């Protein structure tokens, strides 16, 4: 039984580390009502500042910590001041996307300044260790636990007994009322971002010391685990975040004990989704009454769609159809890529824009489509022309069934649940070796062909994608102009009012996810046949974010906008190629500017 004791200790040790992240996230959510996706990036900044201070300046621990505190506080203030303050009053989804953009920019800056090489962080904490069970616990473990608990305690005291803390709590309860009572909301938000960023930065440094290693790529994992812990503890609940972190650590540890290491994250995400469904307000919150009435139409930016002159679409379409005649295969490949992503964007703009279910796991639909078509062609020997539409149908069914339990969630919860479901799909693909060949992936997927006509050339791929995209777009426009379109948009604008007029939410969400799954599944299937090889990483979480960016860029719910957004976001990094390693940074900045200055997207929301 000593092993179980060890698993428990290990669960606490790793949960301890998650706690530092989750506390900051909880604080920001509590006050700004925002899941801060840039949190992990601040963590990386903190780690690198600490590393730079120790290696270049030779600072002792207190001074190192001071450097991290100062820099991260400034970063936090900058995030609030530059990135988010201007977005008050714009659509609810804008700040969330802004944090994604800020994270992207911070990661790139760190990578440009300090290179992507992993670095060793010199240990500045005494190296004594206590034997406990079969393993040991060191001074750093205790320090991390100490900082986690004491920061929670200090935060509690701050919130309870200081004037600014009182203002923070008032703002968290009701920011409008607080403002009327003379609370300076901006100052409060700024203080909160500074505090949360400092916590995040310190945890970056300590975790860097703990593993003796930091690299810029560690931000995503940190954000993800922090968010899972946050959900378990209850959004905005600081002590809950600590408990949630420990529970997450224990779950992972026991998951490894029972099923093996490769199931670890599967357990974490299953726990996340289960929590969202079972107790969306977290373990430590009472079940709340119905949400208060929303302000009208705050979900998406209010705007009128851009009206194009009649001739524009046919002319652009004609030009697109004639593109292969230029005989520029590189251009054509980018075109084909854009078209494949445009199908994904169509799917997401329907689900996120028209129905208001902002999915952060949409890439999983690509994966399902790709694997379905690949396996049908490889193992069942289906012709490609049949495998692709079949994959579309399979994705529609499976995708809808997977999201079905999350239909009763709203707002941020939908995004986080879909993020979790997306990760689960990827991990199931990785672990279901018998069907999917696990990590080895699917190789030798036959190239595109239509009843014997070879479409494997770039021209063939492009033509096929263009035809499929036009058909999907026309169908989607047709549906949007029918009663389905207004019903979907009614659910998005106010689901309570829609239900009161006889609109069964589940049915219409399912129809949207079904159609969206079909389009995304086709996209994934075509991609699989073009690539000839896919594995569980081919359609990773970053693609989900990319797809959402396309949708926002084009204008939520806007079919033409989705196509335009996909084309731009696939073409832009290629156009920025000359800028080499700066291109992703520039991409992030462009994204932020867009959210700031044209939140309704280029073509306007519909």
């Amino acid at each position, binding site marked *: 039984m000593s092993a179980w004791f060890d698993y428990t200790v290990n669960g606490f040790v790793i949960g301890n580390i998650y706690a530092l992240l989750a506390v900051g996230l909880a604080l920001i959510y509590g006050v700004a009502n925002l899941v801060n996706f840039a949190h992990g990036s601040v963590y990386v900044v903190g780690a690198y500042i600490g590393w730079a201070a120790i290696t270049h300046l030779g600072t002792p621990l207190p001074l190192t910590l001071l450097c991290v505190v100062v820099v991260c506080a400034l970063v936090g203030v900058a995030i609030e001041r530059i990135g988010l303050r201007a977005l008050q009053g714009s659509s609810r989804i804008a700040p969330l996307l802004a944090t994604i953009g800020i994270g992207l920019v911070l990661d790139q800056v760190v990578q440009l300044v300090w*290179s992507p090489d992993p670095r060793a962080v010199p240990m500045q904490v005494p190296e004594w260790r206590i*034997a406990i069970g079969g393993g040991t616990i060191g001074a750093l473990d205790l320090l991390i636990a100490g900082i986690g608990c004491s920061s929670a305690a200090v935060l509690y005291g701050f919130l309870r007994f200081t004037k600014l803390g009182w203002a923070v709590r008032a703002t968290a309860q009701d920011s409008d009322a607080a403002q009327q009572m003379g609370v300076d909301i901006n100052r409060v938000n700024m203080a909160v971002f500074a505090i949360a960023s400092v916590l995040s930065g310190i945890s970056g440094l300590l975790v860097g010391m703990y593993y003796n290693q930091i690299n810029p790529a560690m931000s995503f994992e940190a954000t993800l685990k922090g968010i899972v812990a946050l959900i378990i503890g209850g959004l905005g609940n600081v002590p809950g975040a600590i408990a949630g972190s420990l529970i997450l650590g224990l779950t992972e540890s026991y998951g490894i004990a029972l099923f093996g290491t490769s199931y670890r994250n599967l357990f974490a995400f299953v726990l996340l989704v289960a929590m969202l469904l079972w107790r969306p307000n977290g373990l430590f919150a009472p079940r709340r009454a119905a949400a208060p009435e929303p302000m009208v139409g705050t979900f998406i930016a209010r705007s009128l769609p851009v009206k194009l002159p009649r001739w524009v679409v046919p002319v652009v379409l004609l030009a697109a159809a004639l593109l292969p005649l230029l005989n520029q295969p590189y251009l054509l*490949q980018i075109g084909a890529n854009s078209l494949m992503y445009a199908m994904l964007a169509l799917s997401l703009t329907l689900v996120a824009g028209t129905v208001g279910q902002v999915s952060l796991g949409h890439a999983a639909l690509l994966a399902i489509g790709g694997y379905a078509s690949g396996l049908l062609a490889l193992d069942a020997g289906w012709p490609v022309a049949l495998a692709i539409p079949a994959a579309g149908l399979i994705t529609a069914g499976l995708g809808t069934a997977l999201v079905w339990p999350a239909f009763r969630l709203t707002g941020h919860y939908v995004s986080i649940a879909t993020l979790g479901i997306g990760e689960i799909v990827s991990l199931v693909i990785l672990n279901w070796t018998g069907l999917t060949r696990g990590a080895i992936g699917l190789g030798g997927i036959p190239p595109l062909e239509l009843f014997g006509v070879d479409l494997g050339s770039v021209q063939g791929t492009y033509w096929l994608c263009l035809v499929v995209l036009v058909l999907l777009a026309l169908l989607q426009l047709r549906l949007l102009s029918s009663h389905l379109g207004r019903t979907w948009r009614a659910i998005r604008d106010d689901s309570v009012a829609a239900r009161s007029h006889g609109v069964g939410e589940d049915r219409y969400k399912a129809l949207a996810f079904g159609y969206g799954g079909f389009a995304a599944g086709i996209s994934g299937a075509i991609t699989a046949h*073009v*690539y000839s090889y896919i594995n569980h990483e081919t359609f990773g979480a970053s693609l989900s974010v990319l797809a959402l960016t396309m949708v926002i860029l084009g204008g939520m719910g806007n079919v033409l906008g989705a196509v335009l957004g996909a084309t731009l976001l696939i073409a832009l990094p290629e156009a920025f190629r000359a800028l080499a*390693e700066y291109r992703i940074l520039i991409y992030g900045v462009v994204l932020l500017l867009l959210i700031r200055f044209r939140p309704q997207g280029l073509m306007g929301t519909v």
Partner: protein
Amino acid sequence: MSLHRRSLLLGSASLGAGTALAPRSAGAADPVFVGVSGPLTGPNAQYGAQWKDAFDLALEQLNPAAQHKLQYVFEDSQSDPRQSVAIAQKFVNDARIVMELGDFSSPASMAASPIYQRAKLVQFGFTNSHPDFTKGGDYMWSNSISQAEEQPTLADYAITGLGRHKLGVIHLNTDWGVTSKNLFSAAVQAKGATVTAAEGFLPNERDFRSTLVRIRDSNPDGIVIIAYYADAATIVRQIRTLGLTQPIVAVSSVYSPKLIELGGDAVNGVHVITTFFPDEPRPGVQRFVEAFRAKYNRDPDTFNATAYDTMVLASTLVNQYGPTRAAIREGLGKVRGVPSVIFGTMQFDQTTRRVEGAQYKRLVVKDGRFTLFTGGTPS
């Protein structure tokens, strides 16, 4: 470090044509280009940077004396298949390019393979150990170390070299890691020993404590790590933190000066096999290591060495068989005895289109340095 950054920038595609550090001598033929598709940004960016260092060094050494001066065009793919296929179209339709090197990861490389195969441009995936990579077509070649060769060598080190018969394996859960683990298990069984547990972890994982408890409870007398150096450093530290004292044996990708930097004292006593070892007295190795140290003021690692070998091969092919795509393809089938840091000399197996005969060294970390392991069970 600033020098390092600058060299990266110089090599960027913004100049249209990679680094052409060698001055053009009068009368030299027009330069010949190879295309490189690899990560310069994104999570794998460090590997692209390592390639560049090695490529620049190789070209600096070879070009002055070569008839055909070689240059490279490096396009950043982020190791992302979406971008590697676009790059493939770019290269395929750039008449100057006679051969392609990369991409880094198997998904990115293999997604582009159909395009290279169709266009009859050699795709030389020098880091692609995925067993299916060269099955993509007769234009897919690789000099990446064959795991079918490496894993039995590793098993031999653990079993006969160190006298271990119950091995716990911790491996990266990727195409490479799983292939390697399977080959390793087979080799272990063939030698009459057993694998007590095999645990796969995901990239980006940092916490291995519970994984190690599982390994510990399977009662191994040795622990085998199939991973890259950065993860391996973390794993070894946690093995020792948990109080496990079994000898540790690791694959060649763990060999890197960075292992010592990231692992600290904990990695003392770790055994690795490697195809590349800077202290190896062989002249081919010493020439490379000295030149690399002189240029970059640090020790090269296996990624540098492989990339260097690859550029030497490319220059050899161009100069020996001619600066055309067809000549390169033909040359790969014929070429023999190309000097190589990793293999000594390189020649390709015509059916697998891979190189065999890597020369493995057994190393052990002693007092923070890699040293050749001279046999006997460790105390």
